């Protein structure tokens, strides 16, 4: 083992002073198990389906590593702005959206056949769904990606949130047609309205205005703006060790997430999404116990019907979610922090918050056409106006969720 590898993996070689070099030690069992899981799932996808799905599985793994090592939490970023008046996490998200818009809007505007953006209608369903999702984020303790990568890292409370996320998503899918009959307008794509340069300019202008507001909030509270989101170098350890064990500077996570979403679009034909898979898993579970899902309108639409009738290993969102879970698990193993957040099992009110939060997340994600990734991140990167409405409504919901957290004995 090289010196570098030994320092990362936690060498057991005795030091000259007689002590073992255990200043840092990765969890080889978890890291190895995650790698074995990647081989098994990746191998199954390779053998049974198609090479492009293996590539998307690999993208999912990398995205899971980036989310974990970058500690890229949408939920905490929003909460830090509200409760601590600190905006680094929020600015990191805005930078991610700006970079992704720069990459993905031209891709979508190039008119490549078979490539579609994350655009969606604007109406009552979107407003109500994103608002509920915002409340659920703060009670559940994570958004779509946050729930998934923390479950991958072994967080038991977030497993509860995920299970009820799935339940809420299935109920939402059954109710969605009713919500869609309420007032709404067809999707508005900034690319169609203003062309590629115009769409990027509008996006950047909007993101710049939000960033100015975030800076103002922080400056008013603290007198200055911390620029932690712009830091490129690791703070504690070397580059190599930080890359494998975290914590990544925000810039690294921003780059990986932006490129990952663009690759998802280029390979899979549509931007990154997460929550449709939760719908699908829940519907398949119901179908397995004898429920005829075709009696519900949602599951008669072409895409859901196709997904329901075939293997989860053929569904892009599911395959990427599997990759994300295993990537986060590997990252948590490398950081020696797997299951670290679950030493105390969730009980009482925090448990109830995970249940209610999960239900709101799932229901809200279905009505709001996705989560922070599918609706917000991918929506903005696609130049869809619905993403801005989603952003505003989810933020208002999040404000309420933050106020509700102390009632459930959750720290703000």
């Amino acid at each position, binding site marked *: 083992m090289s010196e570098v590898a030994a320092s990362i993996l936690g060498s057991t070689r005795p030091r000259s002073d007689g002590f073992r070099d255990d200043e840092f030690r990765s969890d080889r069992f978890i890291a190895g198990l995650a790698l074995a899981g990647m081989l098994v799932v990746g191998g199954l996808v390779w053998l049974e389906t198609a090479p492009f799905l293996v590539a998307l599985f690999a993208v999912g793994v990398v995205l899971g590593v980036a989310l974990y090592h970058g500690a890229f939490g949408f939920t905490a970023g929003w909460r830090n702005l509200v409760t601590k008046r600190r905006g680094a996490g929020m600015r990191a998200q805005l930078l991610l959206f700006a970079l992704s818009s720069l990459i993905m809007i031209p891709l979508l505007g190039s008119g490549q056949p078979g490539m*579609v953006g994350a655009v969606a209608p604007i109406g009552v369903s979107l407003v109500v769904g994103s608002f509920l999702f915002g409340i659920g984020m703060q009670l559940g303790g994570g958004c779509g990606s946050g729930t998934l990568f923390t479950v991958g890292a072994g967080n038991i409370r977030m497993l509860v949130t995920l299970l009820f996320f799935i339940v809420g998503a299935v109920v939402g899918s059954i109710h969605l047609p009713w919500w869609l*009959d309420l007032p709404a307008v*067809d999707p508005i794509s900034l690319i169609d309205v203003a062309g590629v340069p115009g769409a990027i300019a509008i996006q950047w202008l909007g993101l710049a205005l939000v960033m100015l507001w975030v800076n103002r909030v922080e400056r008013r509270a603290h007198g200055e703006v911390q620029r932690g989101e712009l830091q490129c170098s690791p703070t504690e350890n070397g580059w190599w060790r930080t890359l494998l064990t975290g914590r990544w500077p925000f810039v690294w996570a921003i780059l990986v997430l932006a490129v990952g979403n663009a690759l998802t679009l280029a390979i899979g034909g549509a931007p990154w999404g997460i929550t449709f898979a939760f719908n699908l898993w829940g519907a398949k579970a119901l179908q397995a116990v004898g429920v005829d899902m075709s009696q519900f309108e*949602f599951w008669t639409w072409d895409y859901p019907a196709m*997904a329901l009738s075939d*293997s989860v290993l053929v569904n892009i969102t599911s395959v990427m979610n599997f990759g994300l879970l295993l990537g986060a698990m590997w990252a948590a193993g490398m950081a020696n922090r797997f*299951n670290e957040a679950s030493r105390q099992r969730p009980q009482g009110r925090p448990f109830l918050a995970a249940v209610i939060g999960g239900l709101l997340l799932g229901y809200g994600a279905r009505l709001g056409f996705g989560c922070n990734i599918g609706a917000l991140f991918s929506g903005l990167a696609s130049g869809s106006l619905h993403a801005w409405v989603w952003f505003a409504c989810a933020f208002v919901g999040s404000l309420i969720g933050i106020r509700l957290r102390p009632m459930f004995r959750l720290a703000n």
Partner: protein
Amino acid sequence: MQAAYKRYRVIAFLLVVLMLVLADHLASPTFAFNMGDGRAQTALNQRDASACAPCGAPCPSTRK
């Protein structure tokens, strides 16, 4: 320091998930097609180009 988890529980959880995925896959048209059933309708590219949203929802203008 005491481990934050039990190894057997992690392995058991992953095996259960793998079994569920396999059970779903073995009952799928894709697996049937791979086993030589040429009539099986697989959907390797699950997309509805006419859909209005990523979940496959129709446009408000096309609803009654």
